[in-house]
């Protein structure tokens, strides 16, 4: 059985690099697909636009979603995912700098599975990603394909 993909929605190249590094350090081997704005995230999920010709029909095992994104922001992406039959059950972990109460409330309100604030301390960040990977990729039983 091949590992299912992780979809990382992240516009900042530094954060992308650090997240990938943290995933690698946590021995998470799932392939990671990186998309860099809200539109691309939805295109990939719904196989349209630039991702219309995506070969597989794969649904990611988990979506790591930043909130502040170009074009369409993270909360809007989440709303669309939850509104669509094919994607409404995909685990979505909000991974963001913001710890504003309004973002937390709206994130959970729209059906986020988890909300993690990216710590500045990289050591803590690696630990957060490790636990996240352990839970969503190992412990959590995904919905059957």
């Amino acid at each position, binding site marked *: 059985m091949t590992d299912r993909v992780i979809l990382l929605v992240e516009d900042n190249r530094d954060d992308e690099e*650090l997240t990938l590094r943290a995933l690698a350090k946590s021995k998470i081997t799932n392939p990671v697909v990186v998309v860099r704005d809200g539109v691309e995230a939805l295109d990939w999920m719904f196989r349209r636009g630039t991702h219309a010709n995506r070969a597989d029909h794969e649904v990611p095992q988990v979506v790591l979603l930043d909130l502040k994104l170009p074009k369409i922001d993270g909360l809007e992406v989440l709303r669309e995912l939850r509104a669509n039959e094919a994607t409404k059950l995909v685990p979505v972990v909000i991974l963001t700098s*913001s710890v504003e109460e309004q973002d937390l409330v709206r994130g959970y309100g729209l059906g986020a599975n988890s909300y993690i604030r*990216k710590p*500045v301390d*990289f050591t803590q960040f690696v630990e957060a990603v490790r636990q996240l990977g352990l839970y969503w990729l190992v412990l959590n039983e995904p919905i059957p394909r």
Partner: protein
Amino acid sequence: MALTEVSIAASAFSESTTDYDELLKAITRSCARALKATCTLGLFDETGVMITPVAAFDADPRVVEVFAPMLHRPRRYDESLVGQLSPATGNAFLPAFDLTTLGPRIAPDTFRFLSDIGVSGFITITMRVRGENLGILSVLQHDRSRPPLDEFDREIANHLANLAGFALANARLFRRAQQELAGRLSAEQVSEQLRESESRAVEANLFLDAVLENIPAMVFVKEAAQLSFVRFNRAGEELLGIPRMEMIGKTDFDFFPTSEAEFFVAKDRETLRNRHMVDIPEEPIQTASGERWLHTRKVPVVDDRGEPRYLVGISHDITDLKRDMAALERARDHAERANAELEAFSYSVAHDLRTPLRAIDGFSQALLEDFADRLDETGQGYLTRVRGAAQRMAMLIDDLLKLSRVTRAQLNRQTVDLGDLFRAIVTALQRDAPAREVEVAATGDLVTRADPKLLSIALDNLLGNAWKFTARAPVARIALSAEDRDGERVYCLADNGVGFDMAYSHKLFGVFNRLHTDQDFPGTGVGLATVHRIISRHGGRVWALGEVGKGAKFCFTLGDTRGP
């Protein structure tokens, strides 16, 4: 000319012997015509202490109108014009007269009347008949286009007063005789009752006048038929910048732009038609000092048959209130916009400033991990410092965000037990530092009304400090207490930690102000600023007491706990 008037007067007086009221009018009318001035007549009571104005006449009906409120209202003789100027003889002649020379004891309404008509000279003569002082005839000149009163005028006035005195005495005799005939038995009772009801009416009138003239609202009375002004108070004169002399007898159309006057009159008619009070919350009015806004109530006054006779209007000048309300509205809009901007700014700080810090920290760590073999100890040390600095900056940003959140948060007072908050925070601190041994105590009445969220943040900061600064004490002690001082509940959190020098106490509550180095005790210097802001938001005060090596004590109040 004047002499002709005197002879006409003489016959008029004798004809009026049987009609007392008509006689009183005839006296002043003849006098006013003969001397081209205002004439007033006052009668003494039996004791000679009080004098009552009973009639006034002037060719200009407005003058009579202005004098009307003084009629039938007894006043002390020594507060009258002649009582002030020549009380002994009761006679005075001042062809050129300045009101300002009058003493302060003159009756206020007399003074007002004299000033309203602009009196420039006068003659007063006491009417004596058979040794009895009956009353006073006053000639008041106010027409400045006429020559001043002279000896001839005085002679005529004397003559008239003489005639009038005798006519009055005769009329009184006649009246008394009639009354005696009408009912000997009840005469005394009737006159007693009359006196009583008269004095009650006089009292009520005096009272009303005092209220009307001193109330800080414009009060006007219009007669119901033509809606012309019949009464107008001082506040009204001041508001419109028009003396009542000019108002009386005229209508709104004589003073205001047509559209305004039409509005006023329409409201008047509505009030009179419905026989019901009409409230006009806002109406503009043109005055001598520009446009003003009024809140007006109009009330109909009906007679005993229910027919409207008068309209009473009461107006408050709400121009300043309206202006202040508008300014307040603008200030609130401005504050709301500023708040929204601050909100956006804080959000961006939270998100955007942290991202580069994460890169600095993360890639420094990556260097340490992946390139350790190419970096000596000094190089590695520098990278560790870069990381430390990035993390510290992240902490500062977080604390500043908390501070701004405290400022923005809505204050929501509820019943809250500071003892509960205290114990919860201690439990959390103890969990993070299980090895620490700290004696804690919370005493006194700690239940109050405050914002639980904000107060929890404040206590968290204060307790966090106490916890931190007692780290080196052999037996750490932290105590929260409440006591009443000067009618105010004061809460204090005391510890036996390292304390501080009171010389720097003023710096404690500023943002980024610290009394310890980061090496000694880590911190960002935002915590006490946050506490200060939370307590201020509650309308309370916070202050600190301390001594180096002896511990610190932070006390605060929570303002009016009944407030929102």
